[in-house]
């Protein structure tokens, strides 16, 4: 049975893109791209950051019109003027940048514009909340449906968005990096849902930078490079091999990914030491995870990986150390001296840096230029004593990071919102690299970053560590954690549940540690 | 005394010195008569002044002395007061069509406007080139004063040309800008007629800046500052409506009636507005305040 579904069926294409081109001011994002999607198949859309994937998907979902080219959906020419046009035809989109409404509750977001009505034709809140429980349970979420979305972690928001999309009647589902903030468990669950949808005849377009995922689930792949079609790949018997994909993406043979670190000698002193750390319960968010007495040591020159499931409190830990959230109890020592950062400004002054996980809300200044986005945390370095900016130095610094991180941008003045997601992430990384901190905390540092650049980021982290910087890396992508960490801790429910040297760790062992606590709790 | 009488004294807006003076006079007379006074500032809003009257009625005031912001819009509130048996004396602006108002003490703004224009005509018997600065569009005194000026000047159109007629919203800063524009566009006029003293003083500044010191500028309200300007020859004249006398008379009438139902000798006390010039400065009510 499944074999049948997997065969490239002779069924006509549900969606055909013919010679689509898209220009932005000064940039050609897509140039003469053609592809097809058939019912009941999952088409992977792959390419480096800025290759034009999101642009294509946005055109298909009616967010923006193409500059030229033709789209045929279900045999009829399709010119969507707005997302509503696409939705009406059964094209449902999960966007790369989260598009939930933060002020509304989870339930309302799921039922946006289609709230269930009770008697008298009035909205039935009870039914809405009940129904939404079921919908989010499908993706493995267990949230109080009346929680405002603004209180959710990025991963949870992503899951809510997926859940909403899945609850709509659809013929084509467009998924732009739905898994970028998810951990293995959620990804597995999503994959099985996608598989079920495929069997129901729904077509799916799937974008991801986690190539293993793509290889595991996609029937076919279309690869973009610099806005052009680089080629199509077919599943021939087995999954499409990673090196083949990478070669198509970057145009040369793939170097090895995720090189395991050679055991480095981390002989540094303890730089950061956390004891008995507890955070305040936010009265506005009583269900939020709080830290329950975290102990942690971070040595100079070490990369400490932090693994955990969604909602395990990793982000809370990072924010607490960084002075972004209030601490209820516990001590933090930096180089043996107790510190009590009351604000990020204090923490930064002490030499701590944080790359936050929520790029859109916590990191980028969307309308401002790349230059400002880059230098904002180190203005002192790029200005003189009188307070005037030393723009030449600033530009030179950005130019050098642009090269090392291969940031694709038109000019330093370009508003950062015009960059692809991955390139935005690189600018934010550059922001903190430029500060040269003693302790650098990176929360999902490669979220949305493409394979090549991901390897670069990993290398940079290793270099930084080699220079004596203490690095704490939170990542939901276990291969990444395994690739760069000297030591790994696992968290669950605001507690540290395990620890092991990076060299000894395997995915299985980590998963076990992350779940270990679960077992214990079950017996309590 | 046993129970002291309480009266409401309400003026259109304490943002204008004219009404500040009026309320001060009401206050002084109330003190002299030994009655309590509830003060009310209409804040340039008919609903606000109405609300103040309503609040006073709840407090069972014995009489109301009011200079209504708008003679039409305040009519219902005054009617309500009359219905509640509270004697009402209006000052300055007369409310038509409401039966049972105890008395009106006032100097008509239309008459004032006429007097102002006539003073100008007298100064320029052979005709003149004029600017006219009007008050806030739609506001009662602005309408009336404008009407008065035009009553006089419209029949004399050939001799007295208004080459520039703009509102400056009763404000000095606006009058200055508007006059500057007028001077630049039309050159020097012979006279500028203004709907209040503030605007006249703004026009004075504009003319002084261009060294047009012989332009005859007329104001309205006879504020102390304007009287000084008249004395110093900067203003040609300003219209005196005797707000202090109006106010005191009104309070006297109201209190007398509230005390022992003494009917006023006249239901309508009209003071004739006059134009104060250099020669009759002593007629000005507030000359004493100019140091």
């Amino acid at each position, binding site marked *: 049975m499944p074999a049948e579904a997997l065969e490239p069926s002779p069924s006509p294409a549900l969606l055909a893109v013919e010679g689509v081109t898209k220009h932005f001011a000064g940039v050609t994002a897509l140039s003469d791209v053609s592809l097809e999607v058939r019912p009941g198949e999952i088409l992977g859309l792959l390419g480096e950051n800025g290759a034009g994937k999101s642009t294509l998907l946005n055109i298909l*979902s009616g967010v923006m019109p193409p500059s030229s080219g033709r789209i045929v959906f279900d045999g009829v020419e399709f010119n969507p003027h*707005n*997302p*509503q046009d*696409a*939705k009406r035809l059964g094209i449902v989109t999960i*966007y790369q940048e989260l*598009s*939930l*409404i*933060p*002020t*509304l*509750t989870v339930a*309302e977001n799921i039922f*946006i*514009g289609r*709230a269930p*009505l009770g008697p008298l*034709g*009035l*909205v039935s*809140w009870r039914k809405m909340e009940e129904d939404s429980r079921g919908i989010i349970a499908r993706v493995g979420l267990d949230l109080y449906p*009346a929680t*405002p979305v*603004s*209180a959710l972690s990025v991963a949870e928001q992503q899951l809510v968005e997926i859940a909403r999309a899945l609850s709509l009647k659809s013929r084509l589902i467009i998924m732009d990096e739905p898994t970028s903030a998810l951990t293995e468990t959620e990804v597995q669950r999503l994959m099985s849902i996608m598989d079920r949808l495929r069997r129901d005849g729904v077509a799916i377009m799937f974008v991801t930078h986690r190539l293993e995922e793509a290889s595991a689930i996609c029937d076919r792949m279309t690869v973009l490079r610099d806005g052009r079609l680089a080629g199509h790949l077919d599943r021939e018997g087995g999954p499409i091999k990673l090196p083949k994909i990478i070669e198509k993406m970057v145009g040369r043979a793939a170097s090895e990914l995720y090189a395991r670190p050679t055991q480095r000698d981390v002989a540094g002193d303890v730089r950061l030491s956390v004891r008995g750390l507890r955070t305040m319960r936010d*009265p*506005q968010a*009583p269900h939020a995870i709080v830290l329950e007495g975290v102990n942690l040591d971070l040595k100079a020159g070490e990369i400490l990986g932090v693994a955990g499931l969604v909602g395990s409190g990793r982000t809370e830990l990072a924010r607490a150390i960084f002075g972004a959230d209030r601490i209820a109890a516990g001590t933090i020592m930096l180089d043996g001296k107790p510190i009590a950062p009351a604000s990020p400004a204090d923490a930064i002054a002490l030499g701590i840096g944080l790359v936050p996980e929520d790029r859109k809300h916590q990191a980028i200044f969307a309308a401002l230029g790349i230059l400002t986005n880059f230098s904002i945390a180190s203005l002192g370095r790029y200005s003189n004593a009188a307070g005037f900016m030393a723009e030449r130095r600033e530009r030179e610094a950005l130019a050098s990071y642009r090269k090392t991180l291969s940031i694709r941008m038109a000019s330093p003045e370009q508003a950062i919102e015009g960059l692809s997601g991955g390139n935005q992430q690189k600018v934010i990384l550059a922001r903190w690299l430029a500060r040269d901190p003693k302790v650098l905390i990176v929360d999902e540092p490669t979220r949305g970053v493409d394979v090549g650049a991901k390897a670069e980021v990993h290398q940079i982290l290793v270099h930084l560590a080699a220079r004596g910087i203490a690095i704490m890396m939170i990542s939901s992508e276990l291969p990444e954690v395994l690739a760069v960490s000297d030591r790994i801790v696992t968290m669950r429910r605001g507690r540290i549940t395990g620890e092991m040297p990076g060299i000894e760790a395997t995915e299985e062992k980590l998963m076990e540690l992350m779940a270990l606590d679960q077992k214990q709790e079950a017996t309590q | 005394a046993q129970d002291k009488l309480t009266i409401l004294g309400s003026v259109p807006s*304490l943002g204008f010195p004219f009404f500040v003076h009026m309320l001060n006079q009401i206050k002084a007379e109330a003190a002299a008569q030994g009655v309590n006074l*509830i*003060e*009310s*500032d209409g*804040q*340039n*809003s*008919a*609903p*606000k002044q*109405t*609300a*103040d009257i*309503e*609040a006073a009625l*709840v*407090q069972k005031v014995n009489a109301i002395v009011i200079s209504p912001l*708008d003679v*039409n*819009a305040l*009519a*219902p509130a005054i009617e309500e007061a009359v219905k509640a048996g509270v004697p009402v004396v209006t000052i300055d602006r007369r409310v038509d*069509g409401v039966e049972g108002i105890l008395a009106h003490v006032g100097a008509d703004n239309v008459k004032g406007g006429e007097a102002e224009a006539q003073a100008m005509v007298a100064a320029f018997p052979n005709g003149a080139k004029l600017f006219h600065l009007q008050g*806030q*569009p*739609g*506001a009662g005194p*602005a309408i009336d004063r*404008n009407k008065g000026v035009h009553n006089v000047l419209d029949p004399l159109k050939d001799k007295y040309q208004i080459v520039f007629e703009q509102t400056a919203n009763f404000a000095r800063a606006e009058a200055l800008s508007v006059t500057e524009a007028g001077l630049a566009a039309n050159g020097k006029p012979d006279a500028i007629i203004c709907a209040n003293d503030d605007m006249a003083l703004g026009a004075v500044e504009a003319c002084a800046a261009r060294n047009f010191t012989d332009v005859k500028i007329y104001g309205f309200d006879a504020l102390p500052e304007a009287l000084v300007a008249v004395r110093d020859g900067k203003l040609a004249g300003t219209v005196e409506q005797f707000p202090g006398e109006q106010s005191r008379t009104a309070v006297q009438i109201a209190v007398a009636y509230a005390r022992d139902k003494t009917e006023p000798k006249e239901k309508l006390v009209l003071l004739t507005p006059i134009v104060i010039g250099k020669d009759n400065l002593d007629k000005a009510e507030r000359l004493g305040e100019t140091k």
Partner: protein
Amino acid sequence: MTSTTEQAQRGGINVARLLMSFGPLMFLAVLIVVFTVLKPSFIDPINLFNILRQISITGLIALGMTFVILTAGIDLSVGSLLAFCGMVAAVVAKGGTANTLSLSTTGTQGYGWFAALLAAVVVGAVAGGVQGFAITRLKVPPFVVTLGGLTVFRGLTLTISNGGPISGFDASMRWFGTGLIGPVPVPAIIFAIAAILCHIVLRYTRYGRVVYAVGGNAEAARLSGLRVDRILISVYVIVGFFAGLAAFVLSARLNSSEAVAGIGYELTVISAVVIGGTSLFGGIGSVGGTVVGAALIGVLQNGLQFNNVSSYTQSIVIGLILILAVAFDRWLKSRVRR
């Protein structure tokens, strides 16, 4: 914010908790107590009904403004639009030209109160719609469009009225401003009904929820397939409608439509909405809050006047108390634990 919103959204009403969690309401209660202690006649039904009548005009507009601000918009034109609609209503009621200054109510060449009301609300709604159109199609920010509207409508009003008021309506029309049903003033009843309807619409209809969504994040709303432009236009139609309704009631109450009516109302109205907890950045707020905000302002003004506080001091006290009421609300929100 969140906690009240949630609470409001769940629709449960628990007086003590409401008081405790919503600063302005608590402030309102305290003010009423203080004013009553200072002068017991403050609590007279007559005075309370006076207050209700007084807040009903700006209150009605504030209801419409709540919709607008929920979408992160703003309408500065409401004061001028009120004057304009009032003048239109007067022209219709009097059956013609301006300068019909006679106070006589008998010479009815006019078209009666119903036509006047209809004219006022239709003109208001259309004017709002035109502004909404400029906002969505010409992509001019609401602040600019409605600031333009503020001066345009005032100019139009002065033009049709030639600067003067139009006065003297017949008794059937005046009833809407001065009448009583039982002891309750008609304007207060109109306000109450309108408030309840608006509450139901915002809270229990799809349309209402969509208004919140657009204000929460217009781009996300668009991506979710909502017709954002139409919704935006609709809220300006609504506020225009309410400006028209308020104009009718005000004209009926004053027995006169004035060219200078409503000057500065935009700030009073927006204050009522914002003090009531609606965020100027959209997506958060409620009709209940707006009613409380309007009442707070009304009670303050009336209470201070009642105690014969000098008008200058009134300004100072009102300004400070408004700030304190909101500050207190923020403080409560940061403390309340659930």
